[in-house]
């Protein structure tokens, strides 16, 4: 399990969904931190570099696009893989703009989140 274990930042404005995502990823043995919007996420990246950022698109205060811009400007967590998690339509173009590695459309099953993270680090993926 320890080889699979990753540091994951969950950025999602819906409290209940954020808590649930955090819980299921911890169940899989990952180290998880959470943020309710982009601004809070930048705070979490201070001195902590995640392997994966699960990123909601539309959030109050700072959305995914503003977050990515600021993150690049600051040059922090540059190695983190980005997985967009959203109910928005046309996720492919958002993925391209954000320079993301994968996307999960809401609603989704537990196995989809767990697999999406695993796939990012599988030798064939």
């Amino acid at each position, binding site marked *: 399990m320890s080889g699979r274990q990753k540091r994951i930042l969950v950025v999602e404005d819906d409290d209940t969904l954020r808590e649930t995502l955090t819980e299921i990823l911890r169940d899989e043995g990952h180290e998880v931190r959470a943020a309710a919007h982009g601004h809070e996420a930048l705070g979490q990246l201070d001195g902590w570099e995640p392997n994966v950022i699960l990123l909601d698109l539309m959030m109050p205060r700072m959305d995914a696009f503003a977050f990515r811009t600021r993150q690049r400007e600051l040059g922090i967590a540059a190695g983190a893989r980005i997985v967009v998690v959203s*109910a928005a*339509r046309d996720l492919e173009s958002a993925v391209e703009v954000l320079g993301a590695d994968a996307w999960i459309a809401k609603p989704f099953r*537990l196995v989809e989140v767990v697999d999406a993270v695993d796939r990012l680090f599988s030798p064939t993926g």
Partner: protein
Amino acid sequence: MTTEPDRTTAGQIAAQPPGEETFRLLIEAVQDYAIFLLDREGYVLTWNRGAERAKGYTASEIIGRHFSTFYTPEERDAGRPAWLLSTAAEVGRVEDEGWRVRKDGSHFWADVILTALRTESGTLYGFAKITRDLTERRAAEEQHRTLVAEQHARAAAEDALKARDRFLSIASHELKTPVATLQLAAESLLRARELGRLDDARIETGLGRILRSTERLGSLVSELLDVTRLSTDRLALERQPTDVVALVGEVAGRFSDVVENEERIRVDAPESAVVMADGSRLDQVFTNLIDNALKYSPSGEPVSVIVADKTDGVTVSVVDRGIGLHADTKARLFEAFSRGDNASHVPGLGLGLFITHQIVAQHGGRIDADVGPDDTGSLFRVWLPREAE
């Protein structure tokens, strides 16, 4: 009917200043205007080619007949021809537009100028009448108006479609989040059992999340139903004496139970302010307004609710220091499926203000919105009449 000027006449016209005969010939030849003379009583004295073309009579058929022949029976009964003559005689000139009747009974839209003719000493001896057939122009204008109206209607329909599409996309987005949570929370409980971690605390948290998600779904669905009902029907209001002050206090209290809102809502109100209203619907109004104020302002910023008891009714103002209102948003604020462009990140269907507006209007009241004091945030003011209308 009229004599064509021959080469010699044309030569004469060019060679010397025009005389009376030249003018007579000119007027007779004009085809686009009916130009003719009436005597003092309104009987036709002269006729030209334009008059024949517009009205259908030849000179021999019409000279000596009264000019009221050109009017519809309704206009004749109303005394329109006589009124035109007396007005022209009085003020010198009168212009009129309306339907006139041709010899064959068909109607045409005419622009008429009637000028009184007087001798040098001032004695009235008749009238000059110039009539222009504007039927084609009127039809063209009518067609243009219809076209513009159709364009407006089409644009409005397209806007409504776009608004509906935008709404459906917001609605599906909003519904997907609680559905996702519901799904994950249930799966997380199953996974915890697989991992042998399903203790009481985990069950309680999991079920709590499931309940919150179903509540969220339930309230989204009733909001959708409210809108459908409000768009088509009137609400069945159960009006009874309702103390607005007590109601506002109750709603504010409900929000203050949530820790982060504690002490944020400041109520400024008299002892009581009673109106005839449906308490549960008014509860919805104040809940929506206070919820918006909290949702659209940064955490910690205060929200003021001011109740004022006036002679004919009660006003309730909700003031926040939030993102405020754009001028172009203000106009569409109370429409269904509209929401300020600066509010796209705020969760919800964007139907709250439409519902609020409908409830207030059906109470015979008014609601308006403005930029808050000091040009920050927003101010929503509800006025409710004391008595039911």
